């Protein structure tokens, strides 16, 4: 365990700074700026109309930020964890070191996840602040913080899932897009227990815990079923995160990668 932790730590350290220099980081930053821009427009226009209704604020936060931008940013960043080493053909150097292969996935995922989560939570904070200021009604106490934690959890879980996809599939971006828009987007919004198979369901359960009035505003739009207990929702999300990383690490350790010369 010491070996895996040490190697993961070294790779995290080395690749953390490298993450900022990638084209993917730039794309992620542009994506994260989109909801901020939209919230900015609402903040300028809404006061002219006497303030924005809370449904609008929730919809921008939920449908645009959490359901679209968070998975997309996580996909751009998470799918690169392994795929980049394969595409650049540098994986050979790491594979021929006396370290558990899983450390490559863990270390590189952490190096990608940390700046990505800072970016997403920062963007979410700006969105919430801009929209709250423009809203007719104030958000309940503590809800702002829960919104940020929702983004944090969503970003972490999605990036872990997409990092695993990078180890499991040849084209993780395509698989990730399919997962985000077909599986999560479709299944997560269909009425019925199928929603429980999506990450979105647990994020929504955590976000809306105890907020019966607001939950109605959001749930009516998405045919939601009874949400899970918030503590159980967080546990489930953490379990998915750990499971995805474990599955990715297992596959990555067993799989061989044939690199071109």
């Amino acid at each position, binding site marked *: 365990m010491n070996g895996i932790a040490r*190697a993961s730590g070294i790779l995290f350290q080395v690749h953390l700074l490298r993450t900022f220099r990638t084209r993917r980081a730039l794309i992620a930053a542009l994506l994260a700026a989109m909801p901020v821009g939209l919230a900015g427009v609402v903040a300028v226009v809404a006061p002219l109309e006497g303030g924005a209704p809370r449904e609008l604020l929730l919809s921008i936060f939920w449908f645009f930020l959490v359901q679209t931008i968070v998975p997309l940013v996580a996909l751009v960043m998470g799918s690169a964890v392994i795929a980049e080493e394969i595409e650049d053909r540098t994986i050979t150097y790491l594979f*021929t070191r006396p370290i558990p292969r899983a450390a490559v996935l863990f270390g590189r995922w952490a190096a990608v996840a940390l700046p990505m989560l800072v970016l997403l939570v920062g963007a979410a904070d700006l969105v919430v602040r801009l929209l709250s200021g423009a809203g007719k009604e104030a958000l309940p106490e503590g809800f702002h913080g829960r919104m940020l934690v929702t983004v944090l959890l969503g970003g972490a879980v999605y990036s872990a899932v997409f990092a695993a996809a990078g180890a499991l599939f040849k084209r993780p971006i395509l698989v990730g897009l399919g997962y985000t828009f077909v599986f999560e987007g479709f299944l997560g919004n269909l009425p019925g227990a199928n929603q429980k198979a999506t990450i979105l369901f647990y994020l929504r359960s955590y976000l809306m815990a105890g907020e019966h009035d607001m939950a109605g505003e959001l749930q009516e739009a998405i045919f939601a079923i009874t949400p899970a207990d918030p503590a159980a929702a967080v546990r489930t999300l953490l379990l998915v995160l750990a499971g995805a990383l474990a599955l990715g690490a297992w596959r990555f350790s067993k799989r061989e990668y044939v690199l071109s010369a």
Partner: protein
Amino acid sequence: MTAVLSCEELGRYYGQVVGLNELTTELGGGVIGLVGPNGAGKSTLLRLIAGEIRPSRGSLRVLGEEPFGNRDLYRRLGFCPQQDALYDDMTGFDIVRMLLRLAGYSTADARARAERSLERLSMTERMHDRVRTYSKGMRQRVRIAQAIAHDPEFLVLDEPMTGLDPLGRREVLELLRELGRAGTHVLFSSHILYEVEHLTAEIVLLHRGRLLAKGALPEVRALLSKHPRRVELTARRARELARVLIGCDEVVSVRVEPGEGAEQRLSVETKAVGPFFARLTAIAAAEPFGLGAMRSADASLEAVFDYLIA
């Protein structure tokens, strides 16, 4: 003494393509050149040794251990891959230091070793520059530096001279010779025999994924020059030519086959292709047998042969 490498019926296939086929051999150690034309299976064998890929069949042991994912082995093995791939946004020094830290060295030890290995490759002045600013030769030097930095017992290099200028080639050859003298087992691939000869007389010759010959270079040359090879000719007076050829010392057998029009085909097996062609020229000059096309039926083997004899 344990063989540094032993394999039995080792095969590696990429779908329908054969990378390596039924390779059974044992290498005792020292400095060994892995030679053969492009597509011979050299890189496949070296990738198998480095544990980058798994055998499709057969067994492979490197320093007595199976290589794929074997962490204990990687402490004793240094590998320089053929692909020109490095972390371009990092410096050569940072790459070597990172890989040393992953090999278990402390920060201070990793720094000292990285500096030393890059210095051995004459990279001291440029080691703190980003790799993207390096020439091809410098990139190759960094790849070699990371392979030797942890003083491996067995050093495996895939085309280590690629991209190097003549001076660089000489330096690397000298470095490998030095490592060999110090007791490191070195296995390196090259398709330039001249370089191999300057470093070692021990070679393993691969051709089309198979082991063609192994041993001291002069012996391999002698062995190959005795290898009977087939030459195909066309001639109008084929039967008469066959009668003359069969009396030649260097001809093993002659077969006459139907050809097109007035010409017939002759399939000649010879044990010495050079003298045979010289003899054939003399025969054709002395008497017109209506000699037409002439080609070696073992064209690719001939390429290997010529390559070794050159």
